[in-house]
């Protein structure tokens, strides 16, 4: 199971980096989003795996570590904000500049 999670993180990162290094803003946005999925999973993994033991008091113990989950929640929301700004910039750059490439010209 750990291997599944770790490899998923790895694949998400790989494809994310690959896309982010491409020349269009669209690929960049997708790539960074994939990277953020990977990193969220990584952060979540810091609490180690305990499938089936949700962190609700009164449920089964020993429960999953709630703190990394809280951190990931925060991270997801923050990443969303950042992604939205990125998308807006890509749109603005396209509407004003006429092309959707990441670099000039």
């Amino acid at each position, binding site marked *: 199971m750990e291997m599944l999670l770790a490899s998923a993180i790895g694949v998400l990162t790989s494809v994310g980096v690959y896309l982010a290094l491409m020349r269009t803003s669209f690929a960049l946005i997708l790539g960074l989003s*994939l990277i953020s999925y990977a990193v969220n999973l990584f952060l979540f993994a810091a609490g180690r795996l305990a*499938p089936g033991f*949700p*962190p609700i008091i009164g449920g089964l113990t020993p*429960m999953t570590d709630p703190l990394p989950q809280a951190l990931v929640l*925060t991270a997801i929301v*923050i990443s*969303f*904000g950042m992604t939205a700004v990125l998308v807006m910039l890509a*749109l603005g750059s396209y509407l004003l500049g006429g092309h959707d490439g990441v670099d000039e010209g």
Partner: protein
Amino acid sequence: MLLALIAALPFAGAMMPALLRGAGRSGMTLGCAAATGLAFVLLMTQAPAVLAGAVVEARWVWLPALGLEAHFRLDGLALLFAGLILGMGLLVLLYARFYLSERDNAASFLGYLMLFQGAMLGIVISGNILMMLVFWEMTSLASFLLIGFWHHKPEARRGAMISLALTGAGGLALIAGLLMLGQIAGSSDLSVILAQRDVVQDSPLYLPMLLLILLGAFTKSAQVPFQFWLPQAMAAPTPVSAYLHSATMVKAGIFLLARLWPVLSGTPEWVALVTGFGLATMLLGAWLALFKDDLKALLAYSTVSQLGLITLLLGLGTTAAAVAAVFHIVNHALFKAALFMTAGIVDHAAHDRSIAGLGGLARLMPISFGVATLAVLSMAGVPPLAGFLSKEMLVEEAARTTFAGSGWVLAALVTLAAALSVGYSLRFLVAVFLGPKLWAAPPRDPGAGLLLAPALLALAGLAIGVAPMLLAGDLVSVAASAVTGDPVQAKIALWHGPNTALWLSVAAIGGGFVWLGLEPRLQRLPAAPDAANGFARGLRFLTDIAGRVTSAQSDRLAPMLGLLVLAAAGLGLLAFLTGQHLPGSTALVLPELAPTVVWTGLIAAVIAVPFVLHNRVLSVALMGLAGLVVALGFAYMAAPDLALTQISVEVVTILLLLLALGILPTISVRDVARPRLPQLCLAIVAGLGMTALAYAMLARGAAFEPISAFHIAQSVPGAGGTNAVNTIIVDFRSYDTYGEIIVLGIAALVIAALSEGLPRAPGPRVAHPIIFTSVSQLLFPFVLLVAVHMFLRGHNLPGGGFVAGLVVAIALLMQVMASGQDWTARRMRLNTTMLISAGVLTATGMGLWPMLTGRPFLSSNHGYVTLPGLAPFELATAMVFDLGVMLCVTGAVLLALSSITRLRGEAH
């Protein structure tokens, strides 16, 4: 106290031109002269004490951590130089007043000049070597400004740049050298350093330190091989040449050598380097001066040679040489400044500065001729002028010294140099004033304004020559004492009786005539390459390289990201491998079938994306799928809140991307480009790295008990909720959430601000099917209810403010899209901004509330509430915070998405 005032006066004088602008050039000059004059007078009040052998000091604490003090120290050497700087300063101010034309910006000129004066004065009366460094660089800067004063002339700009680059570089070497000296001697206080001769000379760092200090001194004083900047500096107005580049600034290096003489000299390294370079400079400068056609260039090279002479004397290391050096500093200043001023007068009158174009001015400008003759004879070393005296002393010392293994080499070379100097001196006089030349518009002697200063200087040269002990004896003695560190009584006389020195001097004078005669024939020799061109080319080359290195660091995104990945992978690997890692002992969880299948789906979807990138809608769909799988994964791995949030955010993100695709091209050819090898490698490296790291982290247990144990234990009793994740978010670590909602709010504001400045995207407006509109309107209240339910139960079960806020936002957005965006546009913007603000203020307010009872920000309370007819339920003040979160999230998401939707379609 008085010393500080003396040091400060020139700087005060620098502000005079700005203040006295209305008074015209005379007024401004008077203002500056008043400052200089006052400083000079104050200096003279200290003179008797110094001449009697005392050292006047004044010090203030400045930066003890560095050993830097505002320490002023006036001894014989300082007195001599200070008198030179201030006295010459007055004369130069007078001369400048009449030299500058109406078109010149006199205010700036005077300002720069006074600035220089203050800096130069600061160097000579510094008692702390670090403070001296401060002033040292300032003289280079002031010189830069003055050389480039006529900045419309390219040679002025060039000359300024070359001189700044060279003296600046030397100054930097000096910084290193003086810092080392201070460390070896244990203090930056000059008085302390001067007493540490043995410590310094025995140190293993003596040679590098000496080399660095010599670099500083030689660059400033235009010694070989750095002599070329001085002729370039002749692009400056003549008062500058007279003041800085003959009498004062170029003497700064020599001053430094004299100042540090007691502690640095006497070693074989010192003798070899200083004497050697001085001698070389003396010879080269004199030789080159003989051939220059431009008057100022001739004088410039002559200055180089004369500075070499003084350097040579300082290098010899004997008391008599020190006396000679000090004496020649004065004499040289007198005759050289006079000659520069005369050259300026000739230039003004005849509008020609070249030897070829001048001649026969003795009859037309008799006074100038007289002044020039006195100065020239002093330069040539002809009795009874002062220049003869110091040159005689030089020759005498040279005759006595064994150099390069022989007792007469030095004497011969010195005599040769002296002969050359006679040669160029006579050339100056003969070519400018003698000889037949017809003038169409005969030049005339200028008014007293221009003539007074050089005349005084030339006459002083005569007076000192005739009565040296009377006029200069005491000063030279104390100055030489300061140089050697022991009391010296100079004995200077016009006639020492017939000795070797006298014969050599006579030989030199004779030789000079020979050179003068030979000069026309020697002119046909190929001209030596000008080192200044080489240096300038070097500077341009450096700038070119800098330009190329810099443009290689492009602004493209891929290198930025690539280097980050590379650095992270490389350094991460390095750090990991150089540390110990033990795999953990906790048992790994075995995968079940369902997750494995889902995992396969995720991998497939993700890997497919690069291959279908050109079809952007499909790519977004795959992304959505990936996000969904991640949410499923969270649910499976016992993170229900995360799953909920991930799904909600996923929906909004996909919505966002689809909206964007309504504007961006949906099919793009550029994305199908073949993969570049570095791109592929980096991607693989990053992926492998993350996998390995994640696995290492997962497999190894924690080293200590995590702090979340407290959170779990305190979730109900302390925070009043059973959803441990939610209590962390809105209670234990609510400050994080506070920051987070503000991030979201800021994002929305940025998007809204950006959208206003953008043109509408071309393209058909999206048609809204009636069914869509009615269904969304029907569902709206139910969705709201769901949101409220999610919000209320969040503290105990998965849910909470975020999810609720997102749900409300999505619902509202559906409404907006259904009914037409432009109608609600303005309302939406105002309302959403207010929503965001309300959310922030609610959260802040709830946080501030407990502060009224002395508890910190964001402290929470909880208790049971009983409403009639309902079972008692637990409420926590943290839920008010959660309300703030919900409001802010709703507002932000709405603002962001509506701003983007407004970009599409024609405006109504």
